[in-house]
């Protein structure tokens, strides 16, 4: 087995897992499309990374942070709904990115390229995935409680604003990492589809969140193995694997 292939497999396994786990929270909070929007908001950073040949995640993260900051700032200034502001920021980001994104790099930016990850990329991705997962696991029940009733959560001394900020930061990290695997266009699916499939399989929160983690990892592994056999890029194959599992899950949907 090629070392390069092994790196891709391990990176995909970890990023897919944490993205799935995060997705179970995002679907519960009805923020499923935020992953998609943020994936697009990261494009200017991805474009810079591809031009200057450094890790796309390092390019994506500051662009995401800037995007989230602008949405937050516009919300304070205008009081317009968050989804409208997200729409404005992410489309503007796409427009800016296409001003300088070289044509030959468009495909990598949009659907990712995990075949190029090296040892350090893999190593840092694993560490970041584990840390983000541990943080998410810690805040999981608090976020769910705050989502059920913010007042009840506050009475239970849950600092809702603080936890929401941590949660948003985790989204930014996972999106930045996931962009490397599935690109800006497909990142949303890496978060949503495994969690949606797990929801159909599960009867409780434990099965749901860990089911999403497993399906996320499994989809990435299947997609990357398929990429080794076929000529198609890995990103779409990963998303299609997740979609296939989602279709299978429909048969298991608990009444």
């Amino acid at each position, binding site marked *: 087995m090629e070392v390069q292939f092994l790196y891709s497999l391990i990176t995909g396994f970890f990023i897919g897992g944490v993205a799935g786990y995060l997705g179970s929270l995002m679907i519960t909070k009805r923020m499923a499309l935020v992953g998609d929007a943020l994936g697009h908001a990261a494009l200017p950073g991805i474009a810079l990374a591809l031009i200057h040949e450094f890790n796309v995640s390092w390019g994506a993260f500051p662009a995401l942070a800037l995007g989230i900051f602008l949405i937050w700032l516009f919300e304070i200034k205008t009081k317009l709904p968050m989804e409208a502001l997200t729409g404005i920021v992410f489309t503007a980001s796409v427009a800016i990115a296409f001003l300088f994104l070289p044509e030959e790099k468009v495909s990598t930016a949009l659907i990712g390229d995990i075949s190029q990850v090296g040892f350090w990329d893999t190593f840092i991705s694993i560490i970041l995935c584990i840390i983000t997962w541990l943080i998410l696991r810690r805040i999981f029940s608090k976020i769910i409680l705050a989502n059920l009733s913010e007042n009840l959560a506050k009475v239970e001394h849950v600092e809702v604003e603080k936890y929401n900020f941590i949660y948003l930061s985790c989204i930014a990290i996972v999106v930045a990492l996931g962009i490397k695997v599935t690109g800006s266009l497909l990142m949303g699916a890496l978060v949503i589809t495994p969690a949606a499939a797990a*929801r159909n399989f599960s009867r409780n929160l434990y099965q749901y969140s860990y089911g999403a983690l497993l399906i996320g990892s499994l989809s990435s592994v299947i997609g990357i193995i398929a990429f080794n056999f076929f000529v198609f890029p890995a990103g779409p194959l990963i998303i299609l694997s997740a979609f296939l599992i989602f279709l299978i899950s429909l048969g298991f949907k608990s009444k």
Partner: protein
Amino acid sequence: MKNNLILEVRNLNVELGGEKILEDLSFDLGNKEILVILGPNGAGKSVLLRTLLGLHSFTGQIQWQENVHIAYVPESFDVSPGLPLSVKEFFQFKKTDSQKIIKSLQCVGIMGFSKFLEKRLGTLSSGQLRRALIAWALVDKPDVILLDEPMVGIDIHGRETIYDSLVKFWQKKNQTIILVSHEIGEVCKKANKVLALNKRKLFYGKPKEIITPQNLAKIYGSTISV
């Protein structure tokens, strides 16, 4: 703050969205007392509870006894039936063990625990959900419980059972209760104090003194018999 008082409220004013909701409200509550808050719709009862919990800004003074542990049963609590959250997991948010969960479920008249705990929270009937929510508030033995219309959605027989077991539980555990309710009969008999409210304090005192047909007509704006 005087000894034996768990809560002291002085000249409380609350404004929401430019509208005065509560005006110049003062009352206090001793340890282990049950206070029932009455008033017509829009009187500011729920806002008062939330203000006491620190969820709304206010002017005036609200002073709780130091290190008091407060639980809350909100008026509205909706759970999507699609959310895969079991009743047991909902209780585990409070990091409690199975014995305590079972005890508090008994207090609200729920039997057949193992099956009930595995159910999804969102698939419970509205009555079962209210009971679960009250049990959830009781489970970590708070000093004070604030309940906002806790019996909405529960049938009359169920209400009596729940109130009876709750009052026994409260007396045994020495808990202080603040209860917002539309029910004048059963609830008020169990109370030590009644606060009748319509933005301002209308009446405040022992149930026997407050719950008279004349006073109720003033509170609710029409004749009501008990």
